[in-house]
């Protein structure tokens, strides 16, 4: 053995030992893979059933309601940005579709971007599901419509389980969640809400980001002159100031704008007599502090505050605000800028001729209404922050937030 051979072997020996160790590890991994349990079905596969595909079916399945005529999609119509397709202030549900609800239907578009409810370091209530943020996540949020008396009105988890077990996709449900899933109603409900959450989170229909404004932000199309003027009015702190609560710019990590800062505001929206519950003068929907939400009932300073909604697809809404008081986008915009200059246009007149401003809140809580920020900082006799011509431009811009825009052509139907 000469020196070169010896040198080569000295170098080779450690490599051989390393190769042996690597081989043992590789064999152990292969054995582990062969012996492990079969893949859980809930991991899903491109072809087989998954929580996602089941969620899609559940979302559209009317048979899961007491009436047999109401599905999630009934109120959250995919053709209307997952919001209501009619202009009723509240929807009718229950076994006979005759039980009125309490609030207008919010859009579920982009719902998965909603953070859970929390108080920011400066005390600002933020996030949460439902208009009062009382549901901490999408799973919890899905529970209410399944069992609320004025919605799908399942009497119990067992009631829902029976209906689910009779659906054409019950086998797929068992395949994904286990053969014995229907023997445990609580587990079934959890599986249903999980499937719905997966669907709303992963399906691109819930997060298309393909409005004209999205293309504009990407530099791919140009807004019209009116839309540009509207964007300016939207952003300007001395005009619409919409940007203060509905940020229009990309986030710090270049994420697309959600047009909501997920906070809450008290706008003093007029009481809507079209809501049957409002026939009772003692019933007042005060958002964060109740009565539907119960954990903040002591926080009187939060009474009347409702979550700032996304303005994506706002032009497709049939009703506006938590109580559906306004039925056109123009009326809603006009309320923003004329509420304080011309309150008589929005509130009833009292016996003494005085305008009953903020009439959907007890007088002691009127101080909660936002009267400081632009454009609510006006007074009777002053000019509104936006003129009718400027509202035309603002409305043009808001129309550019409708998803389904086809670059080079008209918005997709």
């Amino acid at each position, binding site marked *: 053995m000469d020196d070169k051979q010896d040198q080569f072997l000295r170098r080779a020996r450690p490599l051989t030992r390393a190769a042996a160790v690597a081989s043992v590890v590789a064999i152990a991994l292969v054995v582990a893979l062969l012996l492990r349990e079969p893949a859980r079905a809930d991991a899903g596969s491109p072809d087989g059933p998954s929580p996602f595909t089941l969620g899609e079916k559940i979302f559209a399945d009317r048979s899961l309601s007491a009436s047999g005529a109401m599905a999630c999609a009934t109120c959250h119509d995919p053709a209307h940005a997952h919001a209501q397709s009619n202009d009723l202030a509240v929807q009718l549900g229950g076994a006979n579709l005759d039980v009125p609800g309490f609030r207008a239907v919010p859009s579920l578009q982009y719902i998965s971007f909603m953070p859970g409810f929390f108080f920011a*370091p400066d005390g600002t209530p933020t996030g949460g599901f439902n208009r009062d943020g009382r549901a901490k996540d999408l799973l919890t949020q899905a529970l209410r419509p399944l069992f609320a008396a004025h919605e799908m009105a399942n009497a119990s988890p067992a009631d829902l389980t029976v209906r689910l077990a009779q659906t054409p996709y019950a086998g797929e449900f068992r395949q994904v969640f286990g053969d014995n899933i229907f023997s445990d109603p609580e587990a079934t409900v959890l599986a249903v809400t999980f499937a719905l959450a997966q669907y709303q989170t992963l399906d691109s229909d819930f997060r298309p980001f393909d409005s004209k404004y999205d293309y504009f932000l*990407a530099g*791919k199309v140009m807004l019209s*002159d009116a839309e*540009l003027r509207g*964007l300016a009015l939207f*952003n300007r702190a001395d005009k619409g100031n919409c940007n203060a609560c509905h*940020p229009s710019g990309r986030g*710090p990590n*270049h994420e697309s704008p959600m047009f909501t800062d997920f906070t809450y505001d008290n706008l003093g929206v007029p009481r809507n007599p079209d809501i049957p519950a409002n026939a009772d003068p003692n019933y007042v929907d005060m958002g964060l502090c109740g009565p539907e939400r119960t954990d903040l009932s002591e926080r009187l300073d939060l009474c009347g505050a409702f979550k700032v909604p996304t303005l994506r697809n706002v032009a497709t809404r049939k009703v506006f605000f938590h109580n559906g008081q306004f039925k056109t986008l123009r009326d809603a915009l006009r309320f923003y800028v004329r509420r304080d200059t011309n309150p008589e246009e929005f509130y009833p007149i009292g016996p003494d001729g005085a305008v009953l401003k903020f009439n959907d809140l007890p007088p002691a809580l009127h101080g909660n209404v936002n009267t400081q920020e632009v454009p609510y900082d006006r007074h009777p006799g002053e000019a509104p922050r936006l003129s009718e011509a400027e509202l035309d431009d603002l409305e043009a811009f808001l129309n550019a937030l409708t998803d389904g825009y086809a670059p080079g052509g008209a918005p997709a139907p």
Partner: protein
Amino acid sequence: MIRNPALLSPVSGCTSTSKRLRLLLSVVAAVASPLAAADEASLQAEIADLRAQIEQLRSQLKELATQRGQAPAPAVQAAAPAPVAGTSAPATAPPSELAQRVDRLERTVSAQAEEQSATTLFSYGEIAYSRPVHDSSQTTADLARAVLGWSHRFDDRTRMAAELELEHAVSSADDKGEVEIEQFYAERQFTDRVGGRAGLFLIPIGLLNEHHEPTQYYSVFRNFVETSIIPTTWREGGVAVYGGTEWGLDWNVGLTTGFNLANWDPSSQEGRDSPLGSIHQELSLAAAKDLSGYVSVNYVGVPGWTLGGTYFTGKAGQGVPDFPAQDARVTLWEAHARWQPGPFDFAALYSRGTISDTQALNLTFIGQPTPVPQLFFGGYVQAAWRNIWSYNDYSLTPFTRYEWVNTAAAYASVPQGLGVPTSPTEQIWTIGTDFYVTPSIVFKADYQQFRIDSSKNSFQLGFGLNF
């Protein structure tokens, strides 16, 4: 432990190269230079130069001896160690005497080096008190920064340096302070005249960016041009090569990370205060698809004078998906001059920056208060009388400075009526004095007057140290 400025500044590194060249032409003066004021690296270089000179003289002597039939003088004679500082050598000193002096110098340096670790610590920091003339409720006092630095010499030619900075005294989720690594690099001297550097380092631009310690500038706060236009302390990650010529031209070129225009916040005042300061990345998970480059030169061949400039350019779109300013380019250049005749110190600097291809991006910012400027610039002239009064270590240096700054001089065009007005060019006078307790500890006082926004007129007091 003392701080070695050459570790932290390619310009100063280049300057030392030029000094060494000049030392070759003036051996005696170099030997007589105060040891305490010189750093070890430059002294080692000095010794090498002197030895070369000795060898040259010895060769000449040998030739003479040969011609006269005599033996040459001994190369080096043993000599008792003697303090070098303060001594002076006659210009006509024979090689043997010169060799003795070199030997003594080398022993002194070696002894000092043995005492000194290869790793050194250094630090600087400053506290500022600012009281607006028209609104005393806005008065603030702040430990603006405290910096701890360290360097390590791997060998005679290779070293590293780093700075850890804490701004505003406290850094937490509820405080405005920041903790940051301001520099972290290694450098190597390839030849006597060329070196290289890699890591996170300061861009060699202007008079302040690399020399931003409180004892290096006169006012309580750094001047506006070199904070609003040149975002001092501006550092990038990358590589650089630098060097100097015999005739006094120091140069520095680098390839670095750059700016990320996708970070521009049109709703913030930050972009109006300092356009580039609002989109610099500081090598913190920096988007680095688009690299930038710079060239910097300084001519120091005439004693007392420094003439120089820097040109920096790079794209700032960084490949961010669906970003409408993908081709935007940030360019910043500056030219500066400094003349220090006797006790006086005159300085002038002008800087101009542009950001191109911002029209589509700015359209998305319509109605917001701070779109991306297309042009921003600023300049200043400054005069100081160093040590107008001194007593022992104490000294007083009054100064004055006039600046003009515009952080949004032009915007890319937008449809009529939808833009925001450009900024006016603000003009600021600063007058004050620095009181040095030692060259490393300074108290400052000055007054600043703004021509347009007089609400900013203010008195300032400052305290800084540096070692």
